[in-house]
């Protein structure tokens, strides 16, 4: 009984919120301003029906998600190794860190105009000389990938450096006196010891990447994605689509975070218990 009640506690405020929303919508009676809850749910429960000529909700979600995963993967591939190098080598750190400090205060959204000017509407397949690949890649603009990359860059890089430099010297010395080579120390000591911090970086980075893609899609020149859907439904005063899109953004963000959190818990099971 107690456990059931505790589990239900989390639902009290969301349900209350929905009730207040619904009452407000009915009283106001202006769907162009406040859509009814059932209208929003109607959009959410029909993810595969065509919306205002922009494709389906599912399609737009998939496009946004694909763009994020594309840019985020690049960020991981570049920033984790760079962070590992900066964390293990003083020389690399001294070389690269000034640039990091210089660019770090720049919010990724501040890069959007730059990316638009620089990359225009170039799509990823065009980089390989293909005009249309007839895959989802046709919806991935280079500029957007760039923005997502910047969103993920610093959390991943800084947490990786932090993770590596925070490895207890006792562990490294123990491995050395047991005859471990530098390569083995890196693989069997530094990497596992830094992994929890790296995973934190990935989680924060993915969260920011997801946030900035929505912002990037809202800008002129965008033609699909969940952010685009928000702006377009705003222009057409289709508020139920706008609100449904926002709900989807929240849910996807939650799912991405939870997914990485599960992986993170697996690799850092030892961490909280160790201290």
């Amino acid at each position, binding site marked *: 009984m107690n456990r059931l009640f505790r589990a239900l506690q989390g639902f009290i405020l969301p349900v209350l919120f929905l009730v207040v929303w619904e009452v407000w919508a009915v009283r106001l009676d202006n769907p162009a301003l406040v859509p009814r809850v059932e209208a929003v749910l109607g959009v959410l429960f029909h993810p595969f029906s065509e919306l205002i000529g922009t494709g389906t909700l599912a399609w737009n979600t998939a496009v946004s998600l694909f763009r994020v995963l594309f840019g985020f993967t690049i960020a991981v591939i570049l920033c984790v190794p760079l962070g590992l190098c900066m964390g293990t080598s003083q020389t690399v750190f001294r070389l690269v860190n000034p640039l990091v400090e210089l660019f770090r205060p720049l919010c990724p959204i501040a890069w959007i105009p730059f990316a638009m000017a620089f990359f225009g509407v170039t799509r990823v397949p065009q980089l390989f000389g293909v005009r249309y690949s007839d895959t989802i890649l046709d919806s991935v603009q280079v500029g957007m990938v760039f923005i997502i990359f910047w969103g993920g860059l610093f959390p991943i890089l800084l947490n990786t450096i932090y993770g590596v430099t925070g490895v*207890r010297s*006792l*562990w490294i*010395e*123990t*491995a*050395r*006196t*047991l*005859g*471990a080579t530098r390569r*083995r120390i890196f693989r*069997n*000591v530094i990497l*596992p*010891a830094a*992994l929890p911090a790296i995973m934190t970086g990935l989680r924060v980075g993915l969260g920011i990447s997801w946030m900035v893609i929505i912002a990037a899609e809202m800008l002129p020149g965008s033609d699909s994605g969940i952010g685009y859907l928000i702006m377009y439904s705003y222009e057409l005063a289709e508020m139920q689509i706008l609100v449904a899109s926002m709900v989807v953004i929240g849910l996807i963000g939650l799912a991405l975070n939870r997914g990485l959190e599960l992986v993170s818990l697996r690799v850092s*099971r*030892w*961490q909280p*218990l*160790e201290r």
Partner: protein
Amino acid sequence: MKNLVLNGVSRVFSGEDEREVEALFNLDIKFSAGEFVSIIGPTGCGKTTLLRLISGLEPLTSGQILIDDKLVKGLNRACTLVFQQFSLFPWFSVLGNVTFALEMKGIDKSRQHQEASALLKLVGLEGAAKARPYELSGGMQQRVAIARALAYDPEILLMDEPFGALDEKTRHKLQDVLLDIWQEKRKTILFVTHNIDEAVYLADRIVVMAAEPGRVVKDIPITLPRPRNRLSEEFTELHIRIRNLIEIPG
């Protein structure tokens, strides 16, 4: 079996204000193969530094370390070091910690499991192979650390206050475990401690050190037969003698 010789070993640390601290000054010590030597002294006498120099984790400022007349350069492959606590790799299981050392030693994969199990049995932990280090008590963790060090199969086992963080009962138990292992494996053991009782109970010989600069003040052979009785008159006598050496600046 190998003899370890220190010739005029010094270690100087330069402090923040350019002041130089002589952690160890002109040490000449000889350790014979198979000997159990306790190294004791007040805080700051350089006993931990001594082990770190012998292991090769830290460079000498001057002097030589020789093993069987061969000069030691860089990491000393004949040694391994057991720290006071928290040295186990928490991302490995207990067994994984031991097999790590076997792997470094180049032991064949197929034999690793069997050898690691035998070592865990030796330290009385055969049932805990799959446990994670953080699931174990401090005493059990130190048993694993000892098993892991033995897996490296060093000629010389360096121990830096390995039982210093344990309660007295556990400490006494582990002292006996260590003596049994020493009698079976016949390793040279250099055992740093600040506990006089522990030093007298364990060692063939006690090196008493003093600080500023770090140096040896006395080298005392212990000839009491084993197992030693902590309550015997001779034991107490030695205890008092060493305490006086440590407390009165030599």
